[in-house]
């Protein structure tokens, strides 16, 4: 208790030196909480957006379908089995047919993925209803990324070429009926959505589907021969891997930030012991044991972290709260990363992270304060009293 009382007096007495260290430590703490909040917030938003826009409550994939291998698309489809047709008819599922195609915007050719989905579906957020209406032309839907890449605008007509089930090329003009904005690139990049029945018709794949998206909240998952069920977690595993990689990158940043702050505390401790030898000698002459003095200097150093936690709470809490309320705008370029990133990320601060980081800062600051303070135990008090550097 005595060490705490004296340490607080000494720290406050040290003035600017103390407050600079406290500020640097609090900056590290706030930055770490902020960065982990951004990553956590991104994770939460990416999961929600991907679920709402692309994967719903999980997907049934045709046995031969592999989204990472376009060559599988030729065989990666099949007749919708009765179990899944039932779900579709009950409004519990949305079948999607996928085929390769080419599009010719402004006379340039571009290989794309052509996807068919029911315009009336309510399973995912894709505004498929914009494809309904005038049936004299195929109404298509594209995302903003695809629109930017192809320079296509709403109501533009563009030629599309595909192969039917026999491998015969066919082509027609489609109309861009709508352009949607989403944070989920996996339903936007290089893709054109058209009504499912039109795609089935032009490819000759009547009643076929490549995968079927289930409505969120469905608990009964029937086993369907020839179709593999992918639950939400397995469909989100890519995002999870990316977030994990980002988190590891974040940890490196935390270590760098914390090391810089701890270096400042270590430096102050070394300087303190060097400059305050006479004071150390006086403490010993007045009856403190050497280890009491070591403890005093260690507590003094460690108290930087306690003060920094208070400082971080004072200036960091409102700042972090504001960012959590108004969001953190991501640079425009992130749209092209191919990752699910919102235009604005709303950080989510995990209490566990804050507690763990606070404890880490407390413990590491105590350790870096103790290391130079140990030197006091070996000091000759008579030399220290004279302020002679030992």
């Amino acid at each position, binding site marked *: 208790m*005595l060490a705490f*009382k*004296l340490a607080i*007096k*000494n720290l*406050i*007495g*040290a003035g600017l030196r103390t407050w600079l260290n406290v500020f640097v430590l609090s900056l590290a703490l706030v930055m770490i909480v902020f960065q982990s909040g951004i990553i956590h917030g991104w994770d939460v938003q990416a999961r929600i957006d991907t679920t709402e826009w692309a994967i719903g409550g999980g997907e049934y994939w045709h046995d031969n379908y592999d989204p990472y291998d376009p060559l599988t698309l030729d065989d990666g489809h099949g007749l919708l089995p009765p179990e899944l047709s039932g779900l579709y008819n009950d409004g519990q599922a949305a079948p999607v047919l996928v085929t390769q195609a080419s599009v010719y915007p402004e006379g340039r050719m571009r290989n794309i993925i052509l996807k068919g989905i029911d315009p009336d579906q309510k399973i995912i957020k894709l505004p498929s209803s914009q494809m309904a209406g005038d049936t004299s032309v195929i109404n298509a839907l594209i995302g903003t990324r695809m629109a930017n890449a192809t320079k296509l605008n709403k109501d533009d007509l563009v030629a599309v070429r595909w192969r039917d089930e026999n491998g015969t090329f066919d082509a027609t003009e489609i109309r861009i009926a709508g352009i949607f904005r989403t944070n989920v690139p996996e339903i936007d990049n290089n893709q054109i959505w058209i009504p499912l029945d039109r795609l089935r018709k032009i490819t000759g794949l009547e009643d076929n589907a490549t995968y079927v998206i289930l409505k969120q909240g469905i608990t009964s998952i029937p086993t369907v021969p020839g179709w593999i069920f992918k639950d939400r977690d397995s469909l989100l595993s890519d995002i999870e891997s990316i977030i994990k990689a980002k988190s590891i990158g974040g940890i490196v940043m935390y270590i760098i930030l914390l090391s810089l702050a701890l270096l400042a505390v270590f430096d102050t401790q070394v300087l303190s012991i060097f400059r305050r030898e*006479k*004071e150390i*000698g*006086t403490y*010993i*002459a*007045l*009856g*403190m*044991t*050497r280890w*009491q003095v070591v403890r005093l200097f260690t507590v003094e150093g460690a108290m930087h972290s306690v003060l920094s936690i208070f400082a971080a709470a004072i200036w960091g809490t409102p700042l972090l709260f504001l960012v959590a309320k108004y969001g953190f705008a991501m640079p425009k370029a992130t749209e092209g990363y191919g990752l699910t990133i919102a235009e604005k990320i709303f950080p989510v601060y995990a209490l566990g992270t804050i507690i763990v980081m606070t404890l880490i800062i407390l413990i590491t600051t105590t350790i870096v304060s103790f290391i130079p303070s140990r030197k006091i135990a070996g000091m*000759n*008090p*008579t030399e220290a*009293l004279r302020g002679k550097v030992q």
Partner: protein
Amino acid sequence: MPVHKSIQMKNTEIISVNSLTKRFPMGLGEFTALNGIDLTITKGEFSGVVGPSGSGKTTLLNIIGLLDNPTDGDAVILGSSSRALSVREAAILRRKHLGFIFQTYNLLPVYTVFENAEFPLLLLKMTAGERKRAVLDALEWVGLSDKVGSKPAQLSGGECQRVAIARAMVKRPEIVLADEPTANLDAENSHHILRTMLKLNEDLKTTFLFATHDDKVISYLKRKITLIDGKVSRDETIIR
């Protein structure tokens, strides 16, 4: 103090130095700072070790103050042998029974006058009320009651040394060791300080042992122990 470390002393003897030798390494050889000193100080003395620079005064005071160990011989302080005490036991003995006054005051710069004087009582774990009473008494003895809230940087040299005296006296120690206490003070302040210490010696029966070569201090001493080249060359009692 543990019983086995206590040494029987004559009734009024509180410091006993026996065949004390202190050598310091110097280059390839050794420098003998103290060479077989024998000395006894009794309770309530106002005595001083005098001599030129390098004669061993401060070394002797440091050993008596248990801040340093003798190479040979022994110093028995309040019945405890310096050779037998552990570093921790020596610290506890200093904390309870010894007061120090230094040439450069050695006040803690971030503490106020009150806090500086209070420091030894914090180590003795006294209650806040007891501490306040004792500190205010000590500051009154040295005439600094009006400076309780000042920091050392706001005080003159004489005032700083008076704070140091208050700090040394606040716990009413058995022995006060003062190493060149007037070296940084002008004549007026020196006399003021010395009169204060003499009064405390007479009122509280505290034993004062000085290390000095200042004539002003010597003129107040009741016993003068002259040290030359690490040996006691003269030990005289002065009747005033």
